[in-house]
């Protein structure tokens, strides 16, 4: 038993006894609760009927569980079209970022060429650029290109700003896969493309998954640029539409949170899915 826990990979030596492990677990669950609590409150509020929201002092649990909020919210606002916008923008930006970053990352990992260092420096530096800091410039550019209030503008911005991260992390993964593995595939009669799709890509799957989900979630949650360059309600993503439930004219916190949960839950599941890749990804990408 003790032997096994000592053989754990990396980290502090934890030869914790039973009691210590129980204390750790208790602290762990408390921490878990703190991290989930705001979203729990979100869910409980989303399940309260209108009149219970404006009761003071408030109650933790709804007296009357109003699951109807999750049905009515679709009629209360055009959130279905906002959701479509979010899905299209996040999906297409991810696709564009992947299609553009894969060849660049592969080529720079496998070849030495004039300008390689400059290219990698460009990637490393622009990785640090956030749309928020540049929102005035982005806005002026989209005005100049006559692209304000279009999905194309949102797609371009989300794809481009996530591109450096994708290149960096994929570059790291490709570079860590020995060239010899591909050469062995050539000896077995595989072509360049086959070697890439059958050997290299499967081995870099963790990096690929991380890049995809990172970009998707980044685009799905993007707020500032969408707030600035979209104006038509049916071209706004969920992040921009959601605050509209609570204004000086109406206070529909239950709808705001019902929609938020609809937006958050699928993404959290995606993220949990890559949680075990995240640690490797963070080690490979920049963080050494």
């Amino acid at each position, binding site marked *: 038993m003790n032997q096994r826990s000592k053989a754990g990979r990396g*980290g502090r030596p934890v030869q914790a006894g039973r009691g210590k492990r129980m204390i750790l677990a208790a602290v762990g669950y408390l921490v878990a609760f703190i991290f989930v609590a705001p979203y729990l409150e979100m869910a409980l509020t989303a399940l309260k009927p209108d009149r219970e929201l404006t009761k003071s002092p408030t109650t933790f649990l709804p007296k009357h569980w109003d699951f109807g909020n999750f049905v009515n919210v679709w009629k209360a606002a055009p959130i279905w079209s906002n959701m479509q916008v979010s899905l299209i923008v996040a999906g297409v930006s991810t696709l564009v970022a992947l299609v553009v970053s894969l060849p660049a990352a592969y080529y720079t990992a496998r070849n030495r060429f004039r300008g390689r260092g400059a290219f990698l420096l460009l990637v490393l530096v622009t990785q*640090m650029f956030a749309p928020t800091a540049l929102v005035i410039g982005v806005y002026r550019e989209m005005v100049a290109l006559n692209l304000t209030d279009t999905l194309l503008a949102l797609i371009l911005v989300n794809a481009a700003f996530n591109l450096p991260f994708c290149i960096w992390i994929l570059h790291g993964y490709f570079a860590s896969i020995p060239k010899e593995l591909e050469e062995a595939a050539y000896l077995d009669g595989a072509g360049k493309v086959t070697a890439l799709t059958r050997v290299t890509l499967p081995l870099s799957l963790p990096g690929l998954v991380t890049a995809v989900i990172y970009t998707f979630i980044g685009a799905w949650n993007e707020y500032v640029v969408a707030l600035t360059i979209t104006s038509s309600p049916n071209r706004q993503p969920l992040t921009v539409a959601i605050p509209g439930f609570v204004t000086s004219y109406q206070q529909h916190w239950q709808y705001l949170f019902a929609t938020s949960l609809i937006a958050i839950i699928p993404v959290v599941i995606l993220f949990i899915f890559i949680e075990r890749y995240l640690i490797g990804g963070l080690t490979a990408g920049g963080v050494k």
Partner: protein
Amino acid sequence: MHDTVEARGAGVKAPAPPPSALRRFGRALAPLPWIGPAIILIAAVVLWPVVEMARTSLLRISSSGATIGTRGTGNYKDLFDETDLVSVLLRTVVWVVGVVLVTVVVSLALGQLLNARFPGRRIVRWAVVVPWAASVLMTALTWKWMLNNYYGVVNKILQGIGVIDHPVNWLSHPTQALMWMMWVAVFVSLPFTSFVILAGLQTIPQDVYEAARVDGAGQARTYFRITLPLLRPSLLVAAIINVINVFNSFPIIYAMTGGGPGSKTDTSTTFMYKLAFIGSGDVGESAAMAVVNFGLILILVLLYLRAVGWGREA
């Protein structure tokens, strides 16, 4: 024929004939099909706004967004004449330093916890990931609701345990609002930071700890003499990425107080946005603020490059 000769020549390391200018040119262009699209996308959508922003900061822009003419340094003069600017910049420093410092310290403990072995560790890791995946805007909105004067659970809980005796309207007092917003910023920064530290912890080989134990080092000594120094690279990178993210943090302040009352809870990021899009709207002056912000970020990027050791490996 020529090709085979060259290939054989390369094999025995005989001096190859110098490639013609045309061929050299062709070789220089060879990477373009691979990296060209990436360069175009980055140049057109990431670098163009930088140039456009700098250009706009020297232009006179009407409130409808049309360019009226050049203005020289007039926008910068207007910006530096803003009475709130100094307090906004000072608040930005407090915001960034405070949030990052607390985030890193708490993450050190959190990373250790996530790395320790206990039943249910998986679930705890999943829970910690949640604020990372959820939109920062929505997280900020739920905190705003929880802090509501009349209907929020924060007042209910604090009254219940006797910390306050009557409901407090937290977000209407600038100082208290700033404190709460800094807490929300810490809350959304913890997942990334603690996972970077967790990743760093897992790269430390077990033998180092064994050796320390053989030498009779205690737990605290082992931590401060071995773990912390070996975590330095991860910590440095996590800190700098956090500094940039927290500096750029817009949704928390914008959603919770809108920077108000007045500009009393603005940082330079929300201040920049409000200059352009709220009230009379002066895009030129806002661009000047953006250029100042961007200059600060560039300094941070240079620090980042030094931290990851760019130039040393190449």
